[in-house]
């Protein structure tokens, strides 16, 4: 009996190992893609632009579902009216599974023609040569001048001199505050020149345990950390990424300030006290006086049963704010690169698209012409929309390395351990340094 079970185990091990190898193989080998690109380039040259048969392209997105699907439909209708020979098919996946599915679709050879990428994941796909260089297409396209795009957003999606995506939207993070709670506690509204010390002092007056009201929420996670770090003049690594500086005193102090909101000042709920409720939900239910979150929440907070507004996020030694951008990129081996390009160009730069975005509060179109934002600025709430553009002066881009996901996950886990009291800020960042050094090798 026992020999049999040993047999079984050895077999199982052998079998699972062989399957593991088999599973990895197609993902790792990128060779076929270049072949396909060569083929598609030929197709572009020979195919006539006025084809009778409509061409169907697939657009894969995470930001449309669930609340902007109708807006996207409207955009596609406008596009198809202008380009009757192109049909756009939408495919969505929830953000948590979006990139897993995209990897499988690419590995399976059925990748969508166009897909949405956020800046952090862009580098990974760019480096693997999975994205089509749009520079030649942009140059020959007389209908568009690339200065129409917000320069910083356009620049974010260029890689080694190639334009591998056109920016569709960008956004930033603000300090949202519930005016009713401030009035009730008799505290003056936040201003753009607040420091975190001012915010904590106000939050202490606003926190009311009997009512279940919290003063402040500013998540302790990777994205918030690199921004707060920048506010305290901390850099993750030097310019050429040869030396990792994440455990410098400035960085440790920045992290300690964040953790203290919960641990020392007790103005922010811990993950356990949140009990699975998101900070946005907490703010919307009127139980959170100040929330540090993105301008993508405008639509969700629109009908909040209280008055609220925004301002530029508080600072430490200096100001620093987020800059997030999403782009539409074309799969390098797409069978219809020309049609895919038409869609990407129209979707990201057409004034009517921009208007639909602005009207529905679907982030901001990444365009440079201020005329597009007049409508945006006049909408309320929040009334202080100018603060969004004020924030962008202080924007910092995330620290990005080739093994981005591993860095984000690794640092994120260390931050969690600090929140759980398993590590001090110093210990966590010492470990983060070792981790990033390993990832950069």
């Amino acid at each position, binding site marked *: 009996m026992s020999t049999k079970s040993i047999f079984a185990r050895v*077999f199982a091990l052998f079998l699972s190992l062989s*399957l593991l190898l088999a599973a990895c193989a197609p993902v790792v080998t990128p060779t076929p893609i270049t072949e396909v690109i060569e083929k598609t380039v030929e197709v572009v040259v020979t195919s006539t632009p006025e084809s009778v048969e409509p061409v169907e392209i697939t657009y894969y997105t995470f930001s449309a579902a669930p609340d902007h699907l109708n807006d996207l439909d409207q955009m596609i209708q406008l596009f198809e009216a202008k380009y009757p020979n192109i049909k756009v098919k939408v495919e969505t996946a*929830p953000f948590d599974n979006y990139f897993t599915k995209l990897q499988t679709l690419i590995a399976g*050879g059925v990748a969508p023609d166009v897909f949405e990428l956020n800046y952090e994941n862009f580098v990974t796909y760019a480096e693997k040569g999975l994205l089509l260089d749009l520079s030649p297409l942009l140059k020959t396209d007389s209908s568009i001048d690339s200065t129409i795009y917000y320069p910083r957003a356009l620049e974010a999606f260029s890689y080694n001199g190639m334009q591998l995506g056109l920016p569709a939207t960008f956004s930033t993070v603000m300090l949202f505050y519930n005016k009713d709670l401030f009035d009730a506690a008799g505290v003056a509204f936040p201003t753009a020149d607040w420091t975190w010390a001012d915010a904590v002092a106000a939050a202490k007056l606003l926190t009311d345990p009997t009512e279940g009201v919290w003063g402040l929420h500013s998540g302790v996670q990777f994205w918030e950390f690199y921004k707060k770090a920048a506010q305290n003049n901390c850099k993750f690594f030097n310019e050429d990424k040869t030396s990792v500086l994440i455990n410098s005193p400035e960085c440790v102090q920045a992290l300690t300030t964040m953790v203290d909101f919960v641990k020392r000042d007790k103005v922010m709920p811990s993950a356990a006290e949140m009990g699975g409720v998101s900070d946005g939900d907490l703010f919307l239910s009127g139980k959170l006086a100040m929330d540090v979150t993105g301008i993508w929440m405008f639509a969700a907070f629109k009908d909040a*049963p209280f008055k609220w507004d925004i301002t530029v996020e508080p600072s430490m030694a200096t100001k620093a704010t987020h800059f997030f951008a999403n782009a539409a990129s074309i799969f390098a081996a797409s069978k219809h690169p020309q049609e895919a390009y038409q869609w990407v160009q129209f979707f990201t730069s057409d004034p009517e698209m921009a208007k639909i975005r602005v009207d529905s509060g679907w982030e901001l179109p990444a365009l440079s012409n201020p005329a597009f934002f007049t409508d945006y600025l006049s909408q309320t709430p929040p009334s202080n929309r100018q603060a969004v553009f004020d924030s962008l002066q202080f924007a910092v881009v995330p620290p990005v390395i080739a093994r981005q996901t591993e860095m984000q996950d690794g640092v994120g886990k260390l931050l969690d351990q600090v929140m759980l009291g398993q590590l001090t800020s110093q210990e966590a960042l010492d470990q983060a340094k070792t981790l990033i050094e390993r990832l950069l090798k």
Partner: protein
Amino acid sequence: MSEQSSQAISPTILTTNCPGSYRLKRRVSQSVLYLLLILGALVMIIPFAWMISTSLKTVQYVLTTPPQLIPNPATLDSYLRLFELYPIGRMLFNSLLVAGLTTLGQLVTCSMAAYAFARLKFRGHNLVFLFYLATLMVPFQVTITPLFILMRIFGWINTYQGLILPGVFSAFGTFMLRQAFLTIPLEYEESAYMDGASPLTIFLRIILPLSKPALATLTVFAFMGSWNAFLWPLFIVREQTMMTLPVGLATLQGRWLTEWNLVMAGTVITVLPMLSLYLFAQKYIVQGFVMSGLKG
């Protein structure tokens, strides 16, 4: 479930000629028992009640403190909006079709494979069975990419075949049925064989009828597994009209904010068929858990 176990735990061995004090003691211990069972039942029921209650709320009442158990105002808006936003009827149909055919397929393939492994002595049958069992150790995440590529080669992406066929073989089901078949005395088959029955006749007329409980258990497990499946349908489906309910529901969760009343309304719709299946097949489900515990 609580009803079941209460019947099992409180045996009717009380006889009428018990002395009074004993009867009292018995009654006290029984009330304690019932109290515990009621508490257990409440713990089990609250999430369900919560789900239904949330699905009847409007957005701003979903996360109030103190939480509302009875929604006020109660509204069916979430359900109406859900049907407006998504082809829920089509998704329900897809889920039923996929789960139904997957279950049927598993019953056929597992029972036949199990019979072969239990009774037919061919060269290396133990080795093949070992191989078969070993596949239980390989997590699905590992095989998903090769499987996906295979489906592409067949041209089965975004089709019902692609959704259903990879699920119709189950090493677990085969193992479970093989163990059940092994408990059937060989003499039945021998006498049938003496009367001239072929292995197929023996399989269809003796083995299968004698294994009804095991087959029913497999039905429930297979249906549950397929009904709740998420990862594979998410990958293979590329259009809303082909989505099963769990995949459709997942698209309700936004990156930043989730309308829980909508999600809960969708969950109620997803749970109802399972719940009704459970009510009908309660006996077999309990039996199934007992069986897989004993034999595993």
